[in-house]
């Protein structure tokens, strides 16, 4: 494990011995591995496009006035199918991008809703993933490092949460947090839409990472580099966060990536249960709205939202797997 020692420190210790090349750290190694498979660049660029769309959706370019505006007749089919109803207002305007993917029940553009939905999906899943990763990492580190009653308490907490089927706990929490007002420190908080979903997802999904981290930290705290850090007088928090955390950080990254996938999918379930976002389009709400449209042969809203989720999930899944292979040395050569 070389990441605990900085190159400068190595130089002074080694004295006259010059290092011909920079040390091969786990991260440089992993990047090199990711680089060898060119498909990873494809996944990364698709993800970059999703991110870009989400950022654009934060600007007025895709604001409420855009996705909420009526742009055509009810259920106008996508422009590329070439079936434009005669005599309607949009007969001559098939080239308008708003009609590329047709319209929904209120004549709103499916394309714009889809693009705006990227913002909701990425906001929800990124925030939920950050929340769950932070909880899981901190609790895992503390349990593994301190052991004793801290460990017993944290282990009890995650075993308990793990003993409640995830979907039940998540749904119950989402239900409890929906449209709630809280008074805390003299201030009022109102949880509407995205914050309550993020909390419901994030607070229930940290167990897997916490357990992994705890196991890993239990091994690391006995390693020589931790003993060395203690010997030079490093404080406990410094040892945990500057020495042990970087050496176990690959677990965090992998969990973060794959967490996003499950949160995007969970948003669909929450929307179906009436616990999703309100007053703004999201992929989950679109699929939920489309559940009866398909029988009327209105397939574009359903297909668009499903494809958007599919594209994001598949890229994250493949990239997550590649990351796992690149970062976890134990898996190398196994599969």
């Amino acid at each position, binding site marked *: 494990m070389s990441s605990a020692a900085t190159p400068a420190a190595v130089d002074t210790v080694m004295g006259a011995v010059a290092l011909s090349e920079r040390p091969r750290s786990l991260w440089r190694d992993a990047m090199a591995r990711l680089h060898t498979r060119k498909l990873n660049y494809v996944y990364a660029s698709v993800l970059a496009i999703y991110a870009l769309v989400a950022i654009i959706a934060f600007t007025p370019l895709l604001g409420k006035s855009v996705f909420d505006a009526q742009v055509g007749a009810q259920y106008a089919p996508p422009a590329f199918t070439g079936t434009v109803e005669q005599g309607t207002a949009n007969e001559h305007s098939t080239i308008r991008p708003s009609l590329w993917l047709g319209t929904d029940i209120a004549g709103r553009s499916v394309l714009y809703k889809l693009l705006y939905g990227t913002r909701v999906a990425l906001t929800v899943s990124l925030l939920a993933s950050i929340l769950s990763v932070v909880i899981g990492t901190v609790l895992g580190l503390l349990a593994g490092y301190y052991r004793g009653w801290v460990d017993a308490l944290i282990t009890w907490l995650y075993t308990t949460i793990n003993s*409640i089927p995830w979907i039940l706990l998540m749904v119950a929490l989402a239900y409890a947090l929906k449209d709630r007002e809280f008074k805390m420190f003299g201030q009022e908080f109102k949880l509407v839409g995205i914050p309550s979903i993020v909390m419901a997802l994030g607070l229930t999904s940290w167990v897997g990472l916490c357990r992994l981290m705890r196991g890993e930290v239990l091994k690391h705290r006995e390693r020589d580099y931790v003993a060395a850090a203690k010997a030079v007088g490093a404080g406990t928090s410094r040892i945990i966060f500057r020495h042990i955390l970087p050496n176990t950080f690959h677990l965090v990254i992998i969990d973060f990536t794959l967490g996003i996938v499950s949160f995007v999918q969970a948003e669909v379930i929450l929307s179906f249960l009436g616990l999703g976002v309100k007053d703004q389009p999201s992929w989950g709400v679109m699929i939920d709205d489309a559940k009866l449209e398909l029988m009327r042969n209105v397939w574009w809203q*359903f297909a668009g939202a499903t494809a958007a989720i599919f594209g994001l999930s598949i890229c994250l899944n493949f990239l997550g797997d590649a990351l796992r292979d690149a970062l976890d040395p134990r898996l190398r050569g196994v599969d």
Partner: protein
Amino acid sequence: MLAYVIRRILMTVPIVLGILLITFVLFSYVAPDPAFTVAGRGKKPAQLRAIRKEMGLDKPVWLDSRAKAEQDGREYKGHFNSQFFDVVLWRFPESIKYHQPVGELIARKAPVSLAVQLPIFLIELGLQLILALICAFNRGRWPDLVVTFGAVLGMCVPYLSIIILGQSVLGFGAGIFPVAGWDTGLKSVHFMALPILVGVAAGLGGGVRFYRTVMLDEVYTDYVRTARAKGVSRNNMMLTHVLRNVFIPVVTQTVTVLPYLLLGSLLLERMFQIPGLGGLMVEALFNNDRPILLAMTYGISIAYCVMLMLTDIAYTLVDPRVRLS
């Protein structure tokens, strides 16, 4: 052996307490006041009080005492006449929508969920094991690549999308199956076919990858190498040696799926109008039916916890190595 069993049972006690605490705190402190959600806005305080009394929410939260009861003008019925012990002792008020005891409602709906979910589970498990075996047999060659790639693709389609698509294409479009509904007794088989098909299709992907990894782990163990060196054929080795050992992780995985069997799939039952526990829960969410939500979260979690305990104990009977570690 007996010591282990006792220790494992004792280990479950704090976990059950934790489940109780989490669900109770969630529903009494975090969730909205059920009296409001039942009565709607603009109700008079007297009506709200009556609803609270009916739901047992006029009682103290944790413990009752004679002084408290006199102060509130209630009849004193012992220390444990509180909201918390109503949950502990399974004294749930009637369902707001059905006006039936929650326990009865759950007992009536559970077999329906099981009738749909058990076939899904068995068919799915069989297919997953077969596909995983095909992968492990042909590791790195095209059947492996096709199956693993297909599994990932399947995992990336939202569950709800698969249900909607199956329902409208196979049920509504082709007219092979009824779109939704349920019937009594054996007649319900007619309605079960499509949900089972869709459920299997939706859940297939994840397990295939998991079991493939499990089988590949097993392929690289010493005893397999020994068997191969002794001249055991590839097929024989896979089907008898490997498959048998793979069943330990398979059983673990299976147990984690069991509560979902009982709960049914929330989405599946709602979309196909199957009167099971999943449908009941979704309905309760829309109706703010707090007794049902609380009882189901609590009851199913405890059942799950007990199942985990039983599996662990069953393990020690099958595999003595577990006891040692």
